[in-house]
């Protein structure tokens, strides 16, 4: 864990306007990237300087969250929080456990231990099913239905019955407009391009105006224009509908567009911070550099651990120790 105090940094609080909010425009697709002294000073202010509003309980709170798949521990004792109404990026290399973490939050992952509270209820609680929108990495829509038929069906699951027919129609129309697919509403989902299909999948998740949106690599493989438009949409949804968004990516330049970041590597949390603080703390120009810095540091620590382990195992064999030392010198830091 990088620092818990970082939660008080810019972008962490909602409700009352903290001093730092002036330099961190929340509605912009790209939060400020410059490291001016002003936000630094502001973020160094004590955590008690602004008491947040009533909706303060974090959208997601995890303590000692561990997930085992088969004989592999995919997530190891994660502790973190995700603030409400903000865009939190979940970043890390492929295979680091991002999808497993998202599935645990949505409540579809088995073998979850530790505590994981989502919207103040234990993850997977039946009452959460209509309050969370989840977009899997591969678009999960019916290819043999039109875009509108897909949305109509999922809307009927969320808002069932004749009485809610008008709400359904409004929700479907809004979701179509959100993802800019109104003109393709009557096309078969299977005939759409990959990017369009993933937008249909996103539209399904937006249907019930969820309080929490969990998006698994929603922009992967999309062209730059579409990626920018989607990020604009995410910011609009977070700002206008007060939706909490947890979005995963392995593209680091998208990290700069998030309010907060969780950096994950091999099932362990490397950092939990705002992009600004992450850059500043690691003294790097980009989040990508900061991440690489943290990864290298973690790898070095892991190496050191195995080496001390090897040393104690072989008692105090002088030869072994020399060999270990040589290897340490050989490896670049």
């Amino acid at each position, binding site marked *: 864990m990088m620092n818990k105090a970082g939660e008080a940094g810019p972008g962490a609080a909602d409700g009352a306007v903290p001093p730092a909010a002036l330099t961190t425009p929340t509605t912009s697709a790209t939060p400020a990237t410059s490291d001016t002294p002003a936000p630094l000073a502001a973020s160094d202010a004590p955590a008690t300087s602004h008491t947040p509003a009533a909706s303060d309980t974090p959208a997601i709170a995890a303590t000692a969250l561990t997930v085992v798949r088969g004989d592999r521990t995919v997530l190891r004792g994660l502790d973190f929080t995700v603030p409400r109404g903000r865009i939190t990026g979940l970043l890390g290399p492929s295979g680091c456990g991002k999808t497993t973490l998202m599935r645990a939050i949505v409540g*579809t*992952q088995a073998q979850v231990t530790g505590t994981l509270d989502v919207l103040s209820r234990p993850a997977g609680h039946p009452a959460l099913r209509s309050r969370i929108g*989840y977009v899997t990495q591969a678009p999960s829509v019916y290819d043999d*239905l039109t875009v509108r038929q897909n949305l109509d069906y999922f809307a*009927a699951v969320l808002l069932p*019955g004749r009485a809610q027919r008008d709400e359904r129609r409004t929700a479907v129309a809004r979701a179509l407009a959100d993802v800019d697919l109104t003109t393709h509403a009557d096309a078969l989902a299977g005939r759409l391009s990959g990017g369009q299909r993933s937008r249909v999948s996103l539209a*399904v998740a937006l249907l019930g105006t969820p309080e929490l949106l969990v998006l698994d690599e929603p922009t992967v493989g999309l062209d730059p224009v579409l990626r920018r438009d989607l990020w604009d949409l995410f910011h609009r949804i977070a700002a206008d509908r007060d939706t909490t968004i947890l979005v995963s990516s392995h593209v680091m330049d998208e990290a700069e567009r998030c309010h907060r970041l969780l950096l994950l590597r091999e099932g362990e949390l490397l950092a939990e911070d705002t992009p600004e603080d992450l850059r500043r703390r690691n003294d790097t120009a980009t989040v990508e550099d900061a991440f690489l810095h943290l990864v290298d540091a973690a790898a070095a620590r892991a190496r050191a651990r195995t080496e001390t382990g090897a040393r104690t195992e072989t008692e105090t064999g002088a030869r072994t120790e020399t060999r270990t030392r040589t290897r340490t010198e050989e490896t670049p830091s």
Partner: protein
Amino acid sequence: MNGARTLATAARVLRQLRHDPRSIALMLLVPCLMLVLLRYVFDGSPQTFDGIGASLLGIFPLITMFLVTSIATLRERTSGTLERLLAMPLGKADLIAGYALAFGLVAVVQSLLATGLALWFLGLDVIGSPWLLLLVALLDALLGTALGLFVSAFAASEFQAVQFMPAVIFPQLLLCGLFTPRDRMAPALEALSDVLPMSYAVDGMNQVLRHTDVTADFLRDSLVVAGCAVLVLALGAATLRRRTA
């Protein structure tokens, strides 16, 4: 269980089917063509056609619905839509009942066509009411849906799912009394056929073939088939897990 969600699911399954007219044609026409074929295979012995034809009216819906359901639910599992639905406020019973309803409807149309063709054009000689034939056919279709749903949980691909057809259906086909009366089989096989649901489907059809009224045996056979369908549907529901590894 929520009626509106069940109906929405059934409507969605039928809508998917509507975008696939070739499948509809195959489901509806193949049993009819098989009956026509059989009629002329047994051109010289109409009695044999009566016996086998009536049994087949019960077996066709079972096989078709088994295949269609196992592939459809497997697609639901592999496409991620099942995970999405189970993360939404949809009951497992809503999903299963929706599928059963949609495919049951297709089975009714299929049975109407096949029964009508057999009775009025191919000269199938049935003593009992055609409505009873239809009832058994519908129960068989439900059983096929249930078996398909259950089996799809054990198939990792559509390739495997298709292989389950010979594994699950063929033994029942051989032992159901279609080829030789069940009481003339080796005792062990007869005992085995007593616990396979398709035997009761065929027995039920034969009761309608030979008796004008609803016999006690017919009632028992229908109840066994219906009971099996419900049991397997419940087992199928248990294979739908909200949380997976």
